């Protein structure tokens, strides 16, 4: 059992920030455990969902932003759908992952690298380019053998194009990313 010394580690600003960004009232959670009971990912989590919610109520910013669970949530919406108090739990986890990114945490580097590779591919081509994003991922992680066993299965079927299917005007999409970065700096 983990004991938390609230007098030292409670960060009230963190709670307020999560509530503001997610639009959810964190104090509504009464720890019924329905979220954890339905979560398919508990077996790889370091902190199960209901405990994340309790730690959030206790303002435990560092523990939450440095945990693996926030990266391993697939947003399958089981917790959100089954919460008896209508808390959008998956949205809260999403928001904590945004905060972790902004503050430089990445406890599941592979997961972050995959998301980054995907978005880089979209920014460049306007659409996701599957072969390209796999190569970007391998470049970032050095995991050369990633899914190499699938190549002989998928390549002969012509399902993995060696060239991107670009939009007519990729700059229009790149501009969305550019404006987003400018907004973030404000």
């Amino acid at each position, binding site marked *: 059992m983990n004991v938390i010394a609230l007098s030292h580690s409670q960060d009230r600003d963190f709670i307020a920030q999560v509530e503001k960004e997610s639009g959810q009232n964190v104090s509504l959670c009464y720890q019924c455990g329905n979220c954890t009971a339905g979560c398919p990912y508990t077996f790889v989590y370091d902190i199960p969902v209901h405990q994340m919610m309790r730690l959030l109520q206790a303002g435990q910013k560092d523990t939450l932003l440095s945990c693996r669970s926030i990266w391993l949530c697939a947003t399958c919406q089981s917790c959100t*759908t089954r919460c008896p108090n209508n808390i959008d739990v998956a949205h809260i986890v999403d928001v904590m992952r945004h905060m972790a990114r902004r503050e430089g945490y990445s406890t599941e580097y592979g997961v972050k690298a995959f998301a980054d590779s*995907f978005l880089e591919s979209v920014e460049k081509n306007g659409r996701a380019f599957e072969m390209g994003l796999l190569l970007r*991922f391998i470049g970032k992680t050095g995991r050369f053998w990633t899914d190499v*066993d699938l190549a002989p299965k998928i390549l002969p079927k012509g399902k993995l194009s060696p060239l991107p299917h670009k*939009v007519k005007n990729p700059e229009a999409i790149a501009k*969305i990313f550019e404006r987003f970065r400018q907004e973030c700096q404000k």
Partner: protein
Amino acid sequence: MSQKLRYAYYPGCSGQGTSKEYEQSTRAVCEALGMELVDIPDWSCCGSSPAHTVDHRLSSALSGRNLALAERLEGVSAILTPCPSCLTNLKVSAHKMKDPEFAAEVNALLDFPVRNTLPVKSILQAIYEDVGPDALSPKVVRRLTGLKLAPYYGCIMNRPPDIMEFDDHENPIAMDRLMEAVGAEAVPFPLKVECCGASFGVARRDIVQKLSGKLLDTAASNGADAVVTACPLCQMNLDLRQDQINVANNTSHNMPVFYYTQLIGLALGMTPSQVGLEKLEVSPMALLDSLPARAEAQAQAAKKPASKGAQS
């Protein structure tokens, strides 16, 4: 179906790559059912899961660009997409943009604003609600009698219910009913809305092996010959990664994983190549070839008790 069904169509990126057969069979089936799909001109990626894990404004802007382009098309009643991930992004974006403050932040990232005038639906919802199993059934020229299917919807087609507004969020039945309308049998499948491991296949293959493995085990133990799905990512995890799953879990599944549009297409008389069956990793051909014999056996079995106890 008196009036013409005309929709804005959002194909999604995977339809040009790893789910080509879904795209191909979707277009063919919609045409056969009198549903006109007008491609959203120069559509771009919806951002998929990676975008919403980075920022909700960015995610909504990437989806929003497509909503705005679709609104400019003439005479369309809804925006349709085959892919549940695209669907959820487009729907969540449209839903969140009902908040004027959020909408202003998103529109500031776009060249032209989203007006939010069209409903967004999955192709599954449109076939189920706008055509319907009762209208589909009489068009069937090849009934898929004897085919036992585990209908797998994936996690986000119906959840969360207040945003997705389609079918039941714990026990959806749209695909079950459509499969029954073409003569197949939908076996009980309690994991209809469980997650397959989503896009963790590349970064954390262990997760997909465990979760998709459970889906295949349960489908098999409930007597299914095959899984039928409506999601490109679910299909890829279950089909393309089936050997990886077998090795990791010490199983020996050899279970075809169809897109529901491929089966509807076959039932409407299309050839296997018209619906892209050769693009599936686990070949379904032996299973499909065995159907006439199974149908015959079922008919024989049905005759016996009927002749014995003719009560009515």
